[in-house]
């Protein structure tokens, strides 16, 4: 009896172990998702997961994925990286070596995407990070791509937008000199603005240090410099203070920000003072049209809330993977070769029509894509205003 039972278990285990492999070699494509399901930012993981579920639904509804005339089943494997760099690298390795996925979407944050990208590149597996804006994620890694623009790209975008929209020629910048992101962006903006409007056209380049609450001396200088617009690439808590103090010192011109403004906290802390201001970001939920609106409505109906930029970028990244797989023209069944082929196809994608904008990849694997200019509406919503392309 006991022996019989053991034999039965052995057969079952063998069967389980062999069955998927047998099928996989023939008809299934596996896509890995490397996302922070637990950890510090579970909401980001949830958005990634939901976008992946919706994408899979579409594939299933179409009866599978058509690659070069052959229909494949698609399986999505979600691996939790706990929002930690080392777990992200581990998750990537597991997806590549054990699960034998064809491509990976994620991780989202740069801190995880950089180490995971190294794994993916070493193992020759295409990976696309929807949300990581740090240049190092894709740098010198032919197998690694991303779905969003880079930090330095926003500077020229803002400079061009202001010129087109308002026709201003004199700008002021107020930034935190002790923080990498605002400092980098402020410098890139200055360079771009002076390229457009000539040297010295940034009439005030004022700084403060993290934790400062009073900006009155800097803002007084800015107002006296005769600047027509103020650019401040700060985080939401500082935005609230800067905008209020600027208004109290008699500043009536536009104030423009960057994607660090794109948090619900901005409006909560800043209130009516921030209504009518502009900033650049990846995507805007309010006032979206076409495919973007369709995605938002479907997501909202299914999960009960409006997706943030992570959800939308993950959706686009999955569809880029899909387009790349289909762009290979047919899979050989040899995983190594197929991964290589998917990478080449992805690098060759031109004018991909995503819900966060049209994308074409540079040789580094970064998309050339449009940024969205958001206007904070009179109801405090982030409203799509226009998209600005490089």
């Amino acid at each position: 009896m006991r022996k019989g039972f053991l034999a039965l278990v052995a057969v079952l285990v063998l069967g389980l172990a062999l069955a998927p492999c047998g099928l996989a070699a023939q008809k299934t494509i596996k896509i890995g998702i490397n996302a922070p399901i637990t950890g510090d930012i579970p909401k980001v993981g949830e958005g990634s997961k939901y976008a992946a579920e919706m994408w899979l639904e579409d594939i299933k509804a179409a009866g599978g994925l058509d690659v070069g005339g052959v229909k494949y089943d698609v399986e999505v494997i979600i691996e939790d990286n706990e929002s930690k760099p080392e777990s992200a690298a581990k998750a990537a390795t597991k997806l590549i070596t054990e699960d034998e996925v064809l491509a990976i979407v994620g991780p989202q944050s740069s801190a995880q995407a950089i180490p995971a990208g190294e794994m993916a590149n070493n193992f020759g597996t295409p990976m696309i990070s929807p949300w990581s804006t740090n240049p190092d994620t894709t740098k010198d890694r032919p197998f690694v791509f991303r779905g969003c623009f880079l930090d330095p790209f926003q500077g020229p975008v803002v400079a061009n937008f202001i010129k087109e929209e308002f026709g201003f020629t004199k700008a002021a910048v107020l930034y935190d000199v002790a923080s990498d992101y605002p400092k980098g962006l402020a410098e890139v903006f200055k360079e771009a603005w002076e390229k457009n409007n000539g040297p010295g056209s940034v009439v005030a380049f004022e700084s403060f240090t993290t934790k400062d609450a009073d900006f009155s001396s800097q803002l007084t200088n800015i107002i006296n410099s005769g600047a027509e617009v103020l650019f401040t690439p700060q985080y939401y808590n500082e935005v609230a203070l800067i905008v209020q103090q600027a208004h109290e010192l008699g500043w009536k011109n536009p104030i423009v920000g960057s994607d660090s403004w794109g948090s619900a906290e901005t409006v909560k802390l800043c209130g009516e003072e921030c209504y009518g201001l502009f900033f650049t970001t990846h995507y805007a939920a309010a006032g979206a049209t076409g495919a973007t609106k369709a995605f938002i409505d479907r997501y909202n109906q299914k999960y009960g809330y409006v997706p943030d930029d992570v959800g939308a970028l993950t959706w686009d990244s999955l569809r880029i993977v899909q387009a790349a797989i289909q762009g290979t023209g047919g899979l050989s069944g040899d995983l190594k070769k197929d991964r290589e082929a998917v990478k080449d196809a992805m690098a060759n994608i031109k004018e991909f029509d995503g819900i966060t904008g049209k994308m074409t990849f540079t040789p580094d694997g970064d998309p050339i894509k449009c940024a969205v200019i958001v206007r904070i509406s009179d109801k405090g919503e982030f409203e799509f205003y226009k998209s600005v392309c490089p």
Partner: protein
Amino acid sequence: MQLFLQNLINALQWGSFYALIALGYSMVYGILMLFNFAHGDIFMVGAYIGFGVATGLTALAAMGTLALPNWVILVLTILISMFLTSFVGMLVERIGYRPLREAPRASAAITGLMIGIILETGNLAILGAERIRFPSLIKSTTYDLGGVFVTNKKIMIVVVSLVLMLALNEFIRRTRWGMAMRAMAFDYVVIPLMGVPLNTIASLTFALGSGLAAAAGIMFAIAYPVLDPYIGIIYGWKAFVAAILGGRGSVKGACLAGFLLGFIEIFVGAYMPSSVRDLIAYSIILLILVFRPHGFFGEPHSAKLRL
């Protein structure tokens, strides 16, 4: 000229906070020879209590239970918060400092730091790390005085600060409690022997200082309406500098030094990059202290007695 006047007004507001906070330091230091390093965090607690009171009163007014205009809510918020925060100060004295009154001064100073950390992290545990927005009790109106911009808030902040400083000065000069405090500052070993209750005076000192810190906290929150549990640290330090600069136990000195600090910071900030602002501002203060080691109004002999 416009630039100068505008910065002058900015500095008046900025200096008011330092002056009000410095008063609390200066009184405790003058009377008990104690560096109350928790004082900056009492300022923070005052701002948060103000937030609670203001939110509560606004909600009551919105429900129609108490039909109060906004300026009444503002006055009530300041008064109630000053009252409540003075109890926090008394509690800190009772729990943190009284058992250590005979201990070395360094132990008491360290106690202050620890109480500060307890207040910060306690707040963090209760309310979380999310920043809160202070309700806008008065609608900001900007007046254009020939290119110099003044808001009703700024005027209110400077006026209320000056009124509080004068009131404190009168209290210390003209009442019996004030006289007891002055006497205690003169010699806190002998005066209790003459029948002045040391513990009561200590509590009173902490209550007054904390009440002023609460007023500063609320006005700070009106001017800079984003609060987090750590706002007290840096302003506490700087106000401490002002207290020392003003001279031990001197109300006049603390006020003057507080405003001076505000002026130096704003004017250095106006003409220099911000990364060197504090470097230059505090080098100037160091220089002043080199030439006037007891501050503006400090009395050399009494300080020598116990330090």
